[in-house]
């Protein structure tokens, strides 16, 4: 008979357990558990969840990217220029924007490979470059007047449910299957677990890093497009900060900063925890600046849980010796 290990169960479903606790706490708030409010929370946060899926690929492969928010900012502004200023229809605008997201993300990877330093350090530099570029090409004004087709991506409903929610769930399922059922997913874990061993195991680590970067870039761009379409305007301020939500949500989802583990569905739960808490803080009328403090503390807690899990595993190892 298989013994149930509560520690393991908790670790595996930590995000869902915390989400449940948060839901129960907020269920005392009036209307919180209503269909409309739940749809609203999902719809408001679809973009953040999609972006987190992209960042999660990177983190599972053992990389961290800080420039995500500014990639989104650039994608948003470029979509604005294409659709509004150049009058390019919605579909080509979206496709071009996705390609640009992929290129920017792959650029981070290229620089990290060229300079032989981890992606984290590279993106400390490139985030500044992307931010500057975004302000320069948008002349730091917001671009309005998107075509209806473009706005539909963020604003249309199917039945009572907004389109972004469908897109989000679709991408969540695709990413989840990719990670759990395909050899590609196993390769991502291999990179995060031990890239040296992955290389010697015949996995083309260099190529994999580009593929993962491209995939992450595409998801980040889609996230930017949905956010821009929802707002109906593009601005350099659109996007930055999302990397923070993403990384915190991913850590809550049980993916380690050291890479190599975690599930996409937990990422969904992790991001939702932050969304609901943010939503709650807004409802409670907490000042934005206090929200920053609260979010930082949540992130520290998420890091704490991650480190605790790592240490605990080492203790288990020791006693097994």
């Amino acid at each position, binding site marked *: 008979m298989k013994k149930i290990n509560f520690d393991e169960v908790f670790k595996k479903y930590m995000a869902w357990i915390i989400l449940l606790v948060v839901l129960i706490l907020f269920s005392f708030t009036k209307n919180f558990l209503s269909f409309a409010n739940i749809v609203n929370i999902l719809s408001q946060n679809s973009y953040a969840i999609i972006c987190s899926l992209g960042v999660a690929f990177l983190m599972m492969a053992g990389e961290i990217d800080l420039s995500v928010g500014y990639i989104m900012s650039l994608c948003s502004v470029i979509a604005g220029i294409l659709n509004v200023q150049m009058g390019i229809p919605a579909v080509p605008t979206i496709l071009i924007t996705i390609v640009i997201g992929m290129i920017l993300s792959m650029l981070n990877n290229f620089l990290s490979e060229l300079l032989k330093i981890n992606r984290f350090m590279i993106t400390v530099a490139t985030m500044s470059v992307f931010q500057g570029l975004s302000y320069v090409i948008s002349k730091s004004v917001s671009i309005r007047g998107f075509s209806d087709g473009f706005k539909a991506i963020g604003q249309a409903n199917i039945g009572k449910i907004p389109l972004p929610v469908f897109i989000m769930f679709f991408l969540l399922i695709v990413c989840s299957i990719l990670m759990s059922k395909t050899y*590609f997913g196993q390769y991502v874990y291999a990179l995060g*677990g031990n890239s040296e061993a992955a290389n010697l195991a015949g996995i083309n680590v260099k190529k994999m890093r580009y593929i993962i970067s491209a995939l992450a870039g595409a998801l980040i761009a889609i996230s930017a497009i949905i956010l821009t379409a929802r707002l109906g305007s593009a601005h350099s301020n659109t996007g930055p900060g999302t990397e923070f939500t993403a990384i915190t949500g991913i850590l809550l989802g049980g993916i380690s900063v050291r890479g190599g583990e975690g599930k996409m569905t937990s990422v969904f739960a992790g991001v939702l925890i932050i969304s609901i808490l943010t939503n709650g803080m807004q409802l409670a009328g907490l000042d934005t600046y206090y929200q920053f403090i609260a979010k930082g503390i949540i992130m520290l807690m998420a890091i704490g849980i991650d480190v605790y899990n790592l240490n605990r595993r080492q203790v288990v190892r020791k006693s097994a010796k």
Partner: protein
Amino acid sequence: MGTILQLDNITKLYPGVTALDDVSLSFEEGEVHAIMGENGAGKSTLIKTVGGAIRPNEGTITVNGKSFDHLTPTLSSENGIGVIYQEFNLVPSLSVSENVCLGNKLGHRFYKDKKQMNAETSKVLEELGMEIDPNTMVSSLSTGQQQMVEIAKSMIKNCRVLIMDEPTASLSSAETENLLKMVGTLKEKGVTILYISHRLEEVFQISDRISVMRDGKYIKTLSTKETSRRELIKLMVGRDIGDEYPKRDTKPEDEVVLEVKGLYGQGDVDINFQLHKGEVLGVAGLVGAGRTEMAKMVYGYLKKDKGEIYAHGEKKNIRIPSEAIANGIGLIPEDRKREGAFLEYAIDWNIPIMMIKKASNGLFVDRKKITEIVDRYIKELSIATPSAQQLVRNLSGGNQQKVVVAKTLATEADILIMDEPTRGIDVGAKQEIYNLINELVAQGKSVLMISSEMEELMGMSDRIMVFYEGEITGFVDRENFEQNHIMALASGIREAA
């Protein structure tokens, strides 16, 4: 001579595991006392107890007549105990003298007196017969030299008992010789040495007495002069394992499965050899002689400058490992933990990772096929584990190595390059690996075995190819195996043509 260190009834419990079970041992002043046992026998726990790194649940430690129920690192060092752990405790960015004097208050309280530090360090280094400039940065020293610095660090604190945990595990042959000489020097000074090692050869060479541990228990203390390797192994493993190197009935065939012609690169010059079907070709040489580089070039992991590789009679262009794997070439890397295994993942994740793409329909993994393969290899290689979901991290060294081998075998490779396949695993597990090699060869596979243990090479190989500074200095057939001859080749003394 009297007893300098005595352990009485030491017990250390970890959740679910008794690491030390009522161990009593005593050490005489000025002796070299080896402690042997398989992995998990409790050697490390024992020395950590003496070094003050862990606190035993029960028992007393008596140093120089003073009794303690536990020690702390400071207390231990104040009482003249020094420990050289496998992982060095040196600060790479500081100089030799700064490291040696670290934590040792010299001169003024607040600023360091460099002159005095250098003088004291030089004195100790000289006494130990080492020629290292105290101003050298530790990061620029070789592993062997760093170890010397560790020893100097203990000696400057007037240590009377020096504990060494597998000191030669990462040293080259020349460095090992040096270290063993140093142990002799220390012994002459009356320092007691507790020497932990897996290597029978050196233990017999330097120790006065040998204590054997098994499963956390003290088994027996033997006088080195009055015992034999066979008796020692029997005590360590707990049963008579017969020949150290199991006999093989099969003979290599004439068919050449791997041929390397004119291989240059990574410091290797003009490497030519043939590997026959069913053959174990040993590769001897000193650390840094270019053996691993050769293996990794053949495998496509390191870039070669030029040279041709023929697998199964056909010329192959191998630029990356996946191309080597596609041609039936597998590499079991030297560094199991860093290059071989995915330690944080389960066994059933590790074994199929190299062939998972082949076992997929398009992108999707065929779970049934994978489970079959995992079960098959756990059984065939008798990997000892409660379940296939066990993390590789939690396995013993020998079983970790089996997982790494299984991972490569699952690709159906028939040309296996094994780089130090038994490094850091204990006697019983070593024998299982040897048996496995024999089985593989019997199945018609061929093995290129790189090893730094001469006896292992002579015990297992059909032929031995010797490397010296990037060149092959000779091939020796089984009938002509002789340690001195091979050592001579490995030291660059070529055969008289």
